[in-house]
């Protein structure tokens, strides 16, 4: 017991950002899970929880928020036009949520395939990869149609709805979502393989990359499509 306490104390005193072989040693010797040991090392009695979280999260949160806001630049330039189409205003937060979530799903599932060694040389002929793409694409179309129906209903109950405008909004939303799913999918595959070949965990890079692209791309592409169609 004294032995394990000694090891745990030593683990706590290690600088957080350092990966230390002691984690592996304690895990093997005492069969304590790596997750528990990681938690003890990160948030143990001698660490400052607030400082630790702030230090690790601030940069990535700041970056993610700024990238998301950059997408708003494009829409800000066409604000009067954008605001005049109420269904698009209603759909904006939902579209951002939706595409960001699909980015995270595609990235994490592709990374799992990589770790399981199920991805061969012929990437785009991989059956499981095709399955992920089809699932996400079908679900994105279903949720977009659901969002369109709700937004049209609310607009109709409010200020009324023009059929031609509604049709254009359907086209804009579907092109936006489908284009971004394809883009995120391609980026996830190439970036995922790149990081994996460099012996890095793609999980740590792909999700922030794809969710930021989703937010930034969604608003940028929406702005372009609004200018083209409306």
């Amino acid at each position, binding site marked *: 017991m004294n032995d394990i306490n000694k090891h745990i104390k030593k683990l706590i005193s290690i600088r957080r950002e350092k990966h230390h072989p002691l984690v592996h040693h304690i895990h093997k010797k005492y069969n304590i*899970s790596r*997750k*528990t040991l990681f*938690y*003890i090392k990160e*948030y143990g*009695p001698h660490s400052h*929880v*607030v400082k*630790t*979280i*702030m230090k690790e*999260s*601030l940069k990535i*949160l*700041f970056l*993610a*928020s*700024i990238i*998301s*806001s950059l*997408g*708003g*630049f494009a*829409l*800000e330039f066409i*604000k009067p036009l*954008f*605001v005049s189409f*109420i269904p698009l*205003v*209603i*759909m*904006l*937060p*939902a*579209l*951002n*949520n*939706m595409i*960001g*979530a*699909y980015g995270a799903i595609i990235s994490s599932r592709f990374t799992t395939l990589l770790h399981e060694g199920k991805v061969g040389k012929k990437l785009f002929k991989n059956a499981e990869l095709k*399955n992920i793409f*089809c*699932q*996400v694409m*079908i*679900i*994105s179309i*279903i*949720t977009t149609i*659901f*969002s369109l129906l*709700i*937004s049209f209903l*609310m*607009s109709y109950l409010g200020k009324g709805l023009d059929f031609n405008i509604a049709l254009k909004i359907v086209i804009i939303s579907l092109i936006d979502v489908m284009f971004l799913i394809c883009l995120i999918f391609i980026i996830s595959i190439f970036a995922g393989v790149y990081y994996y070949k460099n012996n890095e965990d793609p999980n740590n890079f792909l999700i922030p990359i794809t969710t930021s692209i989703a*937010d930034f791309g969604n*608003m940028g592409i929406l702005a372009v499509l609004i200018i083209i169609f409306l």
Partner: protein
Amino acid sequence: MIFDKNFKDILASSMISTSGGLFAGIILAIYADKIFLIPGILVLLPGFLEMRGNISGTLSARISSGLFIHVIKPNHIKTKIIKGNVIAALFLALIISFSLGLFAFAFNYYIFGIFTTKIILLPLIAGVIANLIEVPLALFTTLYLFKKGHDPNNIMGPFVSATGDITSIIALLLALVIV
């Protein structure tokens, strides 16, 4: 097999977060004449909405990890780790809200030549209001779900993004009234 368990899981979580987004969008549309009058609001809005999910989502994930490895007990909330997590989440929200405000202010000033400090105060006040609701909500829902035998990791993501959007828009409206 396309229509497997994964398909159902993704569809269900997607529907939850989309519904939250739509609800927030409806509030946005109702008060469009007030919210969209502010210059630079579309620069501020996506980052502001994103922030809520990011901060409360990671808070929930950290608490979940702690619960699973028994470092956090669901019935003992006055512990150092939980207090630290809550304080950190609130501080992060304050800093990011302020930064977003500065970013939107710079955009207004350099691109449109508009000088308005309202755009800095707005996310700051709204960030405080939204997080005073969202952070305890995320914490207690995570603890509640765990106590009921659910894995909070599977539920909290869509839950936080859905409730986060709604509280953010309501907080923005309240901040508009205050400013």
